């Protein structure tokens, strides 16, 4: 029995001894890997039908599942940096497709310490909040605490956190001209009415549902979100690492070395953002993200058509797709993704510029020590470091935390062999592990 499992066990025992006096309130062992498949609610079943329906796209050839492929951990089905779509399937997206897995505990977007004030009773007589009241600017101004470190942006969905919930997110691809390309939610509504499952809508949401377009679209998006929340394929937690946390299997020597490097604050320091431990109360298994935003200075990807314009920059939190902030301090920041199933991906980071896990790790440890390998030279021969950001925003790139806390010419935080160790560990985060019989 290894130390980690002992810690888990100790935690469970501790919980048992502090059990609440409230009648009927027990504690479940959340570390167990679930094998059974719960039945989906009627609404989630409807969501599943919508998820796989190509008739909701203007091309008639694209569904949610086209880019969020179920057999690829709901990530892209290929190694392309961005996916094609639009009315004729000839248009290119602007960012790599994120996985839809492990978003069930994703918090809504916020800046600074998360407010735990549970009650948001409206102040008496206050007018409705305008939409921009949740803009970054407004949030930043109202955020408590010291301005700098505690004001880390976090949460929300998509690379820039602009969608607050799975339901909110679901509308984006339907209307994006590069994706399913409906011109309006009215057009989507018209398509929904013609689907084979239109009767399901009436049964679930009432016979009058199609008399109220706004409501019908909202319900369709809700059904999509509910499918993702309920169907365990979106959060199976059945990787080797999960079985390891449950004490059912041990890691190989190489995987264990990789885990230690992953956690070591002076080496990979990966777990400082890609959280790898169970929450203290046992409710949250590790999501391998802290849901926060960071500027990594990933090299520009000339393969993205939008990048042909030298004045175009994808600045993440400060636009151009997120439109509620131009605070310079947040330009270039993108949301930290889960590392579960990352070893199955073939396009990494928001712009998909890197195509292998090995290169991802090399980029992390060599960005500062050997930048010439990652960034092009300007005409005058100087290095155009952080070339996917405007000069003015390059100071936002994280150079404080390991493995970025080095100078040009220093030894990288991980050597070749250590990189292979970390990769071996990352592969234990792939879902679908089968216990040896």
């Amino acid at each position, binding site marked *: 029995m290894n130390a980690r499992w002992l810690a888990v066990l100790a935690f469970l025992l501790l919980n048992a001894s502090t059990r609440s006096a409230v009648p009927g309130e027990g504690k479940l062992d959340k570390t167990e890997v679930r094998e059974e498949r719960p039945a989906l609610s009627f609404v989630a079943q409807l969501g599943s039908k919508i998820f796989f329906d190509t008739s909701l796209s203007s091309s008639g050839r694209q569904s949610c599942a086209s880019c969020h492929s179920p057999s690829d951990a709901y990530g892209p089905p290929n190694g392309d940096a961005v996916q094609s779509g639009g009315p004729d399937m000839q248009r290119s997206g602007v960012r790599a497709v994120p996985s839809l897995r492990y978003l069930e505990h994703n918090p809504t977007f916020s800046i600074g310490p998360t407010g735990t004030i549970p009650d948001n009773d409206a102040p008496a007589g*206050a007018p409705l909040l305008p939409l921009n009241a949740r803009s970054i600017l407004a949030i930043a101004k109202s955020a408590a605490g010291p301005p700098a470190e505690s004001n880390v942006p976090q949460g929300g969905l998509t690379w820039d956190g602009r969608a607050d919930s799975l339901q909110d997110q679901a509308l984006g691809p339907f209307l994006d001209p590069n994706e399913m390309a409906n011109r309006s939610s009215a057009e989507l509504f018209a398509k929904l009415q013609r689907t084979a499952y239109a009767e399901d809508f009436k049964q679930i949401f009432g016979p009058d549902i199609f008399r109220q377009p706004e409501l019908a679209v909202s319900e369709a998006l809700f059904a999509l979100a509910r499918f993702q929340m309920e169907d365990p394929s979106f959060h199976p937690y059945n990787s080797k690492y999960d079985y390891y946390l449950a004490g059912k299997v041990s890691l190989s020597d190489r995987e264990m070395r990789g885990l230690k490097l992953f956690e070591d604050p002076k080496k990979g320091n990966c777990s400082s953002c890609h959280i790898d431990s169970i929450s203290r109360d046992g409710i949250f298994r590790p999501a391998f993200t802290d849901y926060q935003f960071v500027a990594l200075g990933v090299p520009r990807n000339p393969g993205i058509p939008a990048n042909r314009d030298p004045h175009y920059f994808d600045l993440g939190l400060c636009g151009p797709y997120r439109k509620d902030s131009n605070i310079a301090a947040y330009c270039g920041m993108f949301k930290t993704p889960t590392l579960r199933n990352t070893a199955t991906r073939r396009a990494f980071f928001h712009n998909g510029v890197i195509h292998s896990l090995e290169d991802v790790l090399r980029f992390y440890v060599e960005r500062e020590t050997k930048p010439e390998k990652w960034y092009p030279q300007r005409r005058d021969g100087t290095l155009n470091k952080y070339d996917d950001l405007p000069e003015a925003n390059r100071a936002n790139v994280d150079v404080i935390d390991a493995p970025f806390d080095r100078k040009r010419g220093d030894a990288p935080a991980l050597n070749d062999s250590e990189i292979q160790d970390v990769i071996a560990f990352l592969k234990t985060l792939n879902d679908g592990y089968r216990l040896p019989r």
Partner: protein
Amino acid sequence: MERSRLILVVSVIAIAITVAVVIVAAQNAPATATPIKHVVVVFGENVSFDHYFGSYPNAANLQGQPRFTALPGTPAVNGLSGALMTNNPNFKNTANGTGAANPFRLDRTQALTADQNHGYGAEQLAFNKGAMDLFPKYTGRGSALGGTGPFYTTGLVMGYYDGNTVTALWNYAQHFALNDNSFGTNFGPSTPGAINLVSGQTNGAVRSTGTTATDASLVADGAGGLTMIGDPDPTDDACSSTRGATATMAGKNIGDLLSARNITWGWFQGGFDLTVTNANGTTGCARSSYSPIVGSYKSDYVPHHQPFQYYRSTANPKHVRPKSVASIGTRDDGGANHQYDVNDFYAAVSAGNFPAVSFLKATAIQNGHPGNSDPLDEQTFIATVLNFLQKSSEWKTTAVILAYDDSDGWYDHVSRIVNPSSASADGLNSAGVCGTGTPLPGVKGMPVNGRCGYGPRLPLLVVSPYARANFVDHTLTDQTSIMRFIEDNWLGSQRIGGGSFDEIAGTINNMFDFTKARNDTLLLDPNTGLPQK
């Protein structure tokens, strides 16, 4: 459980049983006007009558959900039917914009919703001179406006749950008594509702020093004082906001009256015990709990839901713990001053020390408030409390009243104004006008503004061996009807008086038949709300 701990628990129980016999006799000693010796008020959060009972007793019974089928002879409620359902004024009024909607069923999977606007003024504007047709415009809030859960249109405000979601409450209504003509005493959010529950008088608010004069939670009463219409935290409560407005209340509350007669009572609220450490490591005022439905941790204790903390005579600002389980509810409780944690309620009743009057407020995650709670987590709390009490030896003399602090701004189709106001925040009839006539007096005996009511209609249920079965009461009642029952039962019909709504409150006695006690109980599964097998 470790051995030493076990021994301790066993000894505590032994002592408790010894003490209990004596206490129970003392509890039941005070003369009561009815056979009821114990009233438990479960004070939930943020539900309008139509939001929970609009389609009662008809449930959609979608596949895979807890089913609800009405018993034969179930009486009708004043709910949503006919044109109200299919051609509602809120659907027809174009001022509601894209939020214009008919009432629609919220599915059990949609238990978590955004919080609606339940400001004192906003609710009046939604009532629109009594036409009840501007809810999406004035109180509707979709998730894009900062809420959580499904829906991105202000038409969400028209959503209602049925017996597949609020299954326990519908089942209690089937077997006990429901009132469909009960109202929030005033318009507005939680704190005025809580204050009305215990005093019927929201006038006499005192601003804490340092609070800005622009704070909208208190409004000038037109007689030189202030009336509470919002949610300022109680001044001096150790857990109150250090940034927002805080306030105290002048005047008397029901706790003062009970204490004067030596009747045992307590307010039991989730998170009040600051010495506990939760499973997630949080403690003190920061204690928090998680619900998978809400999807995040929420602070257990909400200071502005604790009305007795606003009155110097009944406050326990530092959350002092009762000196013993046996002292809970008594005036000699070691400085807790009748203010306890909800866990103290279970401990006291289990030890045979069941106070005469108990007010229960769940931890935030289970209080039913949209955004931080939901009907399913609320159901868990209510069913847990009612199962617990129905198994108690004292059940035969107990009445549980399920009531709510405010409507959250959810649509309801009935309005009943009995007390006018012309404060700056009013707007029911026109800017600064709500109702007509002379308002009830405030704490100084002069007519005061800021107490326009009754406000929105709220659910009210009585579960008791003396409750009528499958009964719908249409008697006009409000939040202070509960206080009136307590006053009638234990205090010889003494009133708070001085302009308190208790003087004009309708009776809840019609929900009871005190001539005979029933032997049946209704134990419900706290997860599904279905009868336990």
